[in-house]
Structure formats: structure tokens, C-alpha cells
């Protein structure tokens, strides 16, 4: 265009805009709800040009001509006029209710958007050259504001009411126009934005206020009221299962609803509201329903329901789960206590029946451990499958088990039972012999988990150590692999110091195997001192390597690793004694400053005998027996009948130094009994005037060539032994507490009583839970021994005396 368009008088200009712009536009909007076809391209340009002409002034210098403000205000007035005359009238018509009101509103809103869009475009000049200087809202913003103030604020209560009504209808199962509701939601959101969403999103957080106040909050309140009324019915009428199904469905439905026609931020609030009203409000009531509550589900093992329970309540975190976990814990505890009681009375019954409780009487003990294992297994897998291994349930399981696992089974502690059980699993004489290794392995795994709950782990260790010693020395382990793996498992749970002795024992046994080889080589080299039987074949293998006609082997054990053995000894037959001497020479030649203390009574051996002729098919019997039995049986090389006293004396070395300990009378009789049993009648006892006489029963008919004789007191079940173990543990604990106190005090130098007790308890927890009074006793002891000193002023303060 060559020349700029002439400015025009405001009145004429507006006349033109009204006639050619607003009027036709609003007419078509009213009629079709669309304005695309209202104007031809040229007309639009003309209108824009007219705006320009109205706004320009003859003089080009500032200030801006006043007609710009006039025009802005005029546009605003025109929009408001339209809204009042047409729109407000349309939406406030009397018979317009519910869905129809909403539909009308949406239609009017859409029209308004077109109008605002059109105004922004045609009057862009104002947006560009007026709005900023005059600090007024842009035309679009102004347009929406008009709608809010003139229309929305008049009817929002009705609209909200209609919306909530529709929601209610949908909840009761009717199909509603969700698209419509979505549009209404958008209007609420836009009303807060005040500006077109496309312009900026930054203010969205604050822009949602209208939506939050006018729609979201009322919606949440109505949801709350609805479910409060609804669930009150459910809680009384439905079983817990049905309740949960309903709850799950409802929550899902509400969330779907939120997704369909509410703002996304409302979702979490809806969830919270539902959780609170549906789940938390009735939680205690429904959980404890007698015939369908949580306990019922646990008893019936209804995993689906338990899983659903967790799924429903876990989003609430500890708030939702703590009560469930509490009931869960109490249930396990009750079940566990009942189990312990039942097993206890079973064992008592067995004890009364079985008299001394020997032989097969060990069965109920293992039943009890096995039921504990099964119980633990069940709840572990429950936590895994239904409760997603959540910490709160893991802890609840642990707490529950700790409560009853530490109950003693009559005179026997769980620690001892566990030890016996593991012994049986790992021993060739026990259950382990009949199981495959994987099975044993998995049972040991489970056992270690249970052990973790014991507050007296040291007691378990005391037994376990004795039993391992026995298995190793008697060569009764199912396999060394299993022994190692069990130790490894314990080590993982309780730390390396806990298993140090056990590992040391295994190492000793392996070193002893080395000795077996090197001893043989040494004997080969020192033929002069070691009379060797090379037999027919000069090449001797390790296994048939003989000294003095005896296949001899000694275990060299470090005394620190092994249980304390009584220094009981026995007078060995001379060939055996020679072997010991020889080994002593060999060992001393290799090491200095090490002393071998022989414990012959812990040994065992194989005797070959041709004395028993009861079974013609079997010439030589191989008898696996212990040292005592060897000594006794060898006496029968001399004669066939020996009086008790002679046997008794025969096992004693008359020349031995004073204080040498031998088997006492009772044990001796028990020992002889093992040679006179029905299954192994090697000897027969004849009572005579001068005491009993034992005669060799040559007519015994062994059914196999190899026979292993039962050993007396093979297990640590005798009362004295148990007492001794407890005493030993008690002593160990004293030392453990004392050394813990000293370590803590050494570190702190000065410490208050309370802190000392806490730290000492903490240090010892891994092994056992010390009684506060036991700690006090040790503190007093240490004060007495002048390791510690009480502060002169503050008696609850201790000082370490270096």
C-alpha cells in the first residue's frame, strides 16, 4: 500500500466494526455455533485495517491517542453485553437442569472461545501497541475474564451440582456422558488460568485454584460422604473377602473416573480419600472379623486374599500396614506358642513312656524342630508371595519367632534341640544317612534361619562344637562338603568369630590326613624304630599300611578348637601303646615346643575276629568298636571268661601316676552292656556270688561280615552332660561379658553405667542376650579386681584403670 490508511473518527470506526464485525459474527455463532463461514478474506483485512485506523492518530508523537483505550473498553463492553444478553440468559433458563445445563454451558463456552479468538486476531493492534503500555490484560485474557465474571460466577453452583449428580449416577451404574464432564472440567481449569493455556504453563500451579476450590474439593467431599455411608453397610454385612473385593473395585472405579474427567493431579487425592474412607476407616473392624478376618485368612492360607490385602493397604505405607502386621505377628506368636506347648507335652509323654529316653526316643525332638521349620517356611513364603517381602512383615515374622523360639522345651532348650537336629542331619547315624545331600542342604538352610532367632546362640555353639568333634573323630560325617557348607551358612549369619572353632576343627582333621601320609613316609625311612609289616606285598597303600600289625592313625588336634575333654584314660594293650609311642617320636621329630596329649578314649578301631562261629558263612568278623571296647575284647584273647573286677582292673594302669582318671564303675557297667545287647551278644553276663562274670559268646551268629557296635553315650543327652554344657556356657558368658566391658571401657576410659550396659549388650547380641544384672555383677567383679573404679562423686560413672 502506497499511503498509510487515514485515521478515522472513533464513532464511525466502531460503527463499522460493529456492523461488519461483531454483529454478523455473533449472529452466526448464535445460529451455528461456528464462525468459519462468516467472513470472507477481504472482509477480515478490512476489519483489521479499520482497527488500525481507529487507533492511529494524526500526530505521531506520544502519548498514545486516547481512542485506543476507548476501543479496548468498548470491546470489553461489547463482549459483556453479548454475554449478559444471550449467554447468561441461555444458561440460566428455568427448565435447564443437569446434563442439559452442562451441555448448554459447553456450547456457550466453545462459542465464547471463538469470539475471544476472533477479537484477539482482529484487534491485534491493541495487543501489540496498547496493552503493554496501559498495563491491562491482553484481549484474550480480558475476554475469558468477562466470561468468568459474567457467566461462570453466576452459575457455577448449579454446574457443580449437576456434575456431582452425574458422578453419582455413574457410581450407581448408569452410563453418563464422560466427554461432557471432561469438557466441564476443562472449563473449571480454564477459569483459573485466566489466560489461554497455550500461552504459558508456568502459572498452572496457582491457576488451578478455581478448579480445586470449585470442583475438586466438593467432588472429594462427596466421594467421602458417599463411601462413608456405603462402607458402613459393607463393613457390617460383608465378609472380609467381599469387603476387599468391593473396596478394590471401588478404588479402581474412582481412579478410572478421575482419569476420565478430572484433572490428573486429583488422582492422588482421590486415592487417598478412598484409602482413608474405604480401607482405613473400617480397618480394625474388618481385619478382626471372626469368621473371615485376617486370622481366618492366615489359618486357611488364603494367599489370593492376603495378596489382595497387601495390594490394597501397601500404598498407604506403614500407616496402612502396621495394624495388619500387628495382627499377623500376634497370630504367628499364638500359633508358635501353641506348637511349642503341644510339642512340649508330646515330649513329656514320650519321656515318661520311654523311661530313660534312649534309642528311638529322639524322634519327638526332631518333630518339634521340623514343625518349627515348617511354620517358619510357611510364613517366609507368605511374606514373599503375598507381602512382596516388605520389611514391616519381615520384621513382624522375626519378632514373632523370637518370642517363642526362645521358649525352652521342658528341660531342653531350643538351642540344644537345634544342635541335635543339625547333628542328626550331618551324621551317618542320623537322618542324614537316608537323605540326599540337596535335601540336607536345604534343611540346614532353613535351620540356620531359625537359629538366627535364638537369643542363646552361644549355647547352640557349645553343643554344635561337641557334636562336630564327635562326628569328625568317629568319622561319622555324611560328608565334609556338607560340614563346610553348614559352617559357612552359620558364618554368614553370625559372623566369622562365631564359627572360628568349627573351622579350626575341620582344618585339624585335614592336617591329620596329611600326617597320615607323612607318618607313613617317616616310618618307611626309619625302619629301625618302626617295625613295619609289609605283608606279602612290599608296596603298601595308605589304607593297608600297618605298624605293629595295626593300621594306625592319629588325629592331631589343637586344644583351643576342640571341646574340653575329661582327661580320662585307659590302659592300652601294648601293641596299641607302641603305636602311640612311635607316632610321638615321629611328631616330635617334626615339631618343637608342641606337646601331644593323648586322648585314647576318644578313638575307635576295627577288630578282626574269628572267635564267633555262630554263622558258618562268616569266618572273620570285622567289628568297629571304640577304644574301651577294643581293650575289653582283646582281653578275651587270653581267656573266655573274665570276672567284672578283672576287667575293671585291666583297664587301669597300676603304675600310673596319682590322679590319672579312669572310667568309673557306672560307666564301665554301661560299657559292658553294649557288648551284651540282643543285637550284638558278643559277651554273656553271668551273675555269681563273687560278682558278675562276662563270658565270650562264641555262638553269636553275625549276619554280616562288618559290624559297627553302638557306643554308649553317643549323644549329649545325659543330664550331667547337659548341665556341664550349660555351666560351660555360663562361664564363657562371664568371660565374654567381662572382656566386652573391658574393651568398651578401654575405649571410652570413662563411661556412665547406662551407656556401658547398652554398649556391652550391643557387642554381645550376636552371641546371646546378656541379663542387665549379669553385666552388673561383672562390673562389680571388675571393680573388685581393680580394672574399673567408681567415680568418687557420681556413683553411676566408671573409670577405666589402665
Amino acid at each position: 500500500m502506497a499511503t498509510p490508511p487515514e485515521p478515522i473518527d472513533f464513532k464511525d470506526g466502531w460503527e463499522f466494526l460493529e456492523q461488519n464485525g461483531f454483529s454478523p459474527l455473533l449472529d452466526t455463532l448464535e445460529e451455528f455455533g461456528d464462525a468459519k463461514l462468516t467472513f470472507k478474506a477481504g472482509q477480515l483485512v478490512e476489519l483489521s485495517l479499520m482497527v488500525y485506523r481507529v487507533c492511529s492518530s494524526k500526530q505521531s508523537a506520544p502519548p498514545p491517542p486516547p481512542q485506543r483505550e476507548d476501543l479496548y473498553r468498548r470491546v470489553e463492553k461489547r463482549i459483556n453485553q453479548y454475554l449478559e444478553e444471550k449467554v447468561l440468559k441461555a444458561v440460566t433458563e428455568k427448565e435447564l437442569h443437569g446434563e442439559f445445563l452442562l451441555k448448554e454451558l459447553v456450547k456457550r463456552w466453545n462459542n465464547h472461545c471463538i469470539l475471544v479468538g476472533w477479537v484477539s486476531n482482529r484487534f491485534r493492534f491493541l495487543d501489540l501497541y496498547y496493552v503493554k503500555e496501559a498495563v491491562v490484560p491482553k484481549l484474550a485474557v480480558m475476554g475469558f475474564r468477562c466470561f468468568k465474571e459474567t457467566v461462570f460466577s453466576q452459575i457455577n453452583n448449579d454446574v457443580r451440582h449437576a456434575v456431582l449428580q452425574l458422578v453419582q449416577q455413574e457410581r450407581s451404574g448408569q452410563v453418563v456422558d464422560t466427554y461432557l464432564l471432561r469438557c466441564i472440567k476443562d472449563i473449571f481449569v480454564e477459569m483459573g488460568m485466566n489466560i489461554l493455556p497455550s500461552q504459558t504453563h508456568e502459572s498452572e500451579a496457582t491457576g488451578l485454584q478455581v478448579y480445586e476450590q470449585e470442583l475438586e474439593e466438593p467432588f472429594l467431599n462427596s466421594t467421602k460422604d458417599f463411601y462413608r455411608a456405603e462402607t458402613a453397610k459393607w463393613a457390617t454385612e460383608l465378609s472380609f473377602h467381599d469387603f476387599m473385593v468391593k473396596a478394590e473395585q471401588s478404588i479402581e472405579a474412582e481412579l478410572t473416573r478421575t482419569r476420565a474427567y478430572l484433572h490428573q493431579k486429583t488422582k492422588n487425592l482421590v486415592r487417598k480419600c478412598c484409602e482413608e474412607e474405604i480401607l482405613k476407616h473400617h480397618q480394625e473392624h474388618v481385619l478382626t472379623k471372626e469368621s473371615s478376618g485376617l486370622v481366618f485368612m492366615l489359618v486357611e492360607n488364603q494367599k489370593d486374599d492376603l495378596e489382595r490385602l497387601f495390594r490394597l493397604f501397601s500404598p498407604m505405607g506403614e500407616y496402612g500396614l502396621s495394624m495388619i502386621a500387628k495382627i499377623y505377628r500376634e497370630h504367628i506368636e499364638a500359633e508358635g506358642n501353641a506348637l511349642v506347648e503341644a510339642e512340649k507335652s508330646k515330649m513329656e509323654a514320650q519321656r515318661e513312656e520311654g523311661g530313660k529316653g534312649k534309642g528311638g526316643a529322639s524322634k519327638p525332638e526332631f518333630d518339634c524342630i521340623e514343625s518349627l521349620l515348617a511354620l517358619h517356611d510357611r510364613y517366609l513364603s507368605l511374606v514373599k508371595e503375598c507381602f512382596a517381602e516388605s520389611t514391616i512383615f519381615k520384621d513382624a515374622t522375626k519378632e514373632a519367632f523370637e518370642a517363642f523360639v526362645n521358649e525352652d522345651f521342658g528341660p531342653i532348650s531350643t538351642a540344644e534341640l537345634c544342635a541335635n537336629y543339625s547333628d542328626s542331619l550331618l551324621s551317618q547315624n542320623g537322618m542324614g544317612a537316608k537323605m540326599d545331600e540337596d535335601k540336607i542342604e536345604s534343611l540346614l538352610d532353613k535351620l540356620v534361619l531359625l537359629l538366627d532367632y535364638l537369643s542363646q546362640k552361644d549355647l547352640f555353639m557349645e553343643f554344635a562344637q561337641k557334636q562336630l568333634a564327635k562326628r569328625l573323630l568317629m568319622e561319622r560325617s555324611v560328608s565334609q562338603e556338607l560340614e563346610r557348607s553348614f559352617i559357612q551358612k552359620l558364618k554368614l549369619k553370625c559372623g566369622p568369630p562365631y564359627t572360628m572353632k568349627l573351622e579350626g576343627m575341620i582344618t585339624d582333621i585335614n592336617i591329620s590326613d596329611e600326617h597320615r601320609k607323612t607318618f607313613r613316609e617317616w616310618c618307611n625311612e626309619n625302619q629301625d624304630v618302626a617295625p613295619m609289616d609289609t605283608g606279602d606285598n612290599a608296596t603298601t597303600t595308605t589304607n593297608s599300611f600297618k605298624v605293629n600289625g595295626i593300621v594306625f592313625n592319629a588325629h592331631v588336634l589343637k586344644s583351643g578348637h576342640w571341646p574340653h575333654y575329661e582327661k580320662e584314660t585307659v590302659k592300652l594293650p601294648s601293641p596299641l601303646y607302641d603305636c602311640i609311642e612311635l607316632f610321638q617320636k615321629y611328631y616330635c621329630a617334626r615339631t618343637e615346643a608342641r606337646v601331644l596329649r593323648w586322648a585314647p578314649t576318644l578313638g575307635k578301631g576295627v577288630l578282626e575276629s574269628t572267635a564267633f562261629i555262630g554263622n558258618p558263612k562268616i569266618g572273620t568278623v570285622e567289628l568297629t568298636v571304640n577304644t574301651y571296647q577294643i581293650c575289653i575284647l582283646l582281653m578275651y584273647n587270653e581267656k573266655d571268661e573274665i570276672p567284672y573286677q578283672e576287667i575293671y582292673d585291666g583297664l587301669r594302669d597300676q603304675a600310673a601316676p596319682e590322679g590319672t582318671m579312669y572310667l568309673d564303675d557306672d560307666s564301665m557297667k554301661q560299657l559292658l552292656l553294649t557288648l551284651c545287647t540282643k543285637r550284638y551278644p558278643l559277651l554273656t553276663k553271668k551273675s555269681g556270688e563273687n560278682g558278675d562274670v562276662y563270658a565270650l559268646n562264641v555262638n553269636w551268629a553275625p549276619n554280616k561280615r562288618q559290624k559297627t557296635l553302638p557306643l554308649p553315650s553317643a549323644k549329649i543327652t545325659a543330664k550331667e552332660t547337659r548341665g556341664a554344657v550349660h555351666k560351660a556356657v555360663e562361664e564363657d558368658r562371664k568371660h565374654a561379658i567381662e572382656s566386652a566391658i573391658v574393651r568398651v571401657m578401654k575405649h571410652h576410659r570413662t563411661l556412665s553405667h547406662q551407656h556401658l550396659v547398652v554398649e556391652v549388650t550391643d557387642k554381645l547380641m550376636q552371641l546371646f542376650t546378656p541379663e542387665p544384672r549379669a553385666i552388673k555383677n561383672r562390673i562389680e567383679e571388675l571393680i573388685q579386681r581393680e580394672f574399673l573404679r567408681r567415680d568418687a562423686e557420681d556413683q553411676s560413672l566408671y573409670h577405666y584403670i589402665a
Partner: protein
Amino acid sequence: MPGYREKDAISLFNKYKEEDVDKIGLDGLERLYGDLSISLDDIVTLLFAWRLNTGTLCEITKDEFLSGLRGMRVCDIRSLKSSIENLRPLIYDQKNFRDFYLWCFDYFRDSRYKTMDLETAKAVWAQLLKEQYTHLDLWLEFIEANACAISRDTYSVFLNFTWSVADDFSGYDDTAAWPVLIDEFVEYARGKLAEREQEI
């Protein structure tokens, strides 16, 4: 106020000392307290021994006697009597009594052992705490049955116990640093008190 004269003090000592050794023995003590007209089982005799810091039971060596009298600035029987009587109020002062109480432990203890045997301990407590501790009877009855010897620590803390714990044992905390013997005593005494209450 007569002061201290070494000569007079020595002659006073010689009056009571044993014939062949330079110390006052049991016999001398009996005569001394007789002349002072103080009964031998009066607690003030202990206070005097404490004042002289005598090392051995029922014995006063010459050094102990002379330096003690020098410190008290007396050398004749009359002024000694009034000085000794003046020691009495010392036991009403907590700090002094505490020192005296602890000194008694070493004084009565058999020096071969670190602990005090039960009979001595009972006698010492009966003497020292007679008017001070409400439940002394209960305590003596209790240790008779439950203790065999008393350690210095327990002995020392027991005094604090009698001072600081209420007569009905309310607020006693057995997780605090009290020795176990005292913990057990409180249990015992609470039971006894409850029994008595029921009888009434």
C-alpha cells in the same frame, strides 16, 4: 586451755601401754576408756581411733597416740575426755561421716582379704548406721541370708543408698548403677514391707 606437752603426753601413753611393746593394747584401752568414763562400745571410741588414724584394730601405737594428741592439743586425761566428746557431732556432717564410714571398712577388714567378712560387716553396720537407717534390720537380715562377704564397692555405695533412696523404695531404679546385692535387697525389702502392710 592446756596445750600439748610432749612429756605429759608420753607419760600418759606410758600409763596405758603394754609392758614390753610401745603400744596400747586391748587391756590398756579398757583402762583408758575406764578413766575417761566412756563405754567401750560407744561409737565415740571409733571416732577417736579414726581421729588418731590407727591402723590396727584395738591397738594404738606410740606414734599414733602422740601425733593424735598433738593434733588435738591435749595431754591430760580431763582435756582428752572433752576433746573426745567433741568428736561426736562429726558424724552429723555427711562429708565427715562418709570419710569415717569408709575408714571403718579398712579398719575392720581383715587385711589379708579385699572384702569384709559378713559378721564384721554386720557388726560395723549395726554400730554405724544404728540411728541412721530405717531398714537396717531388714538389711542385716537380708545379707545374713544372701551374702557371704561385702566388697568395698558395695559397702561404699550402700551409704549413698541409705541416704538417697526413699524409705518405701519408691523410685528405685534397678537398671541404675546400684550393685546387684542392693537390687536384690530392694526386691526383698519391698516384699517384706508389703507383707507387713497386709498384716496391719
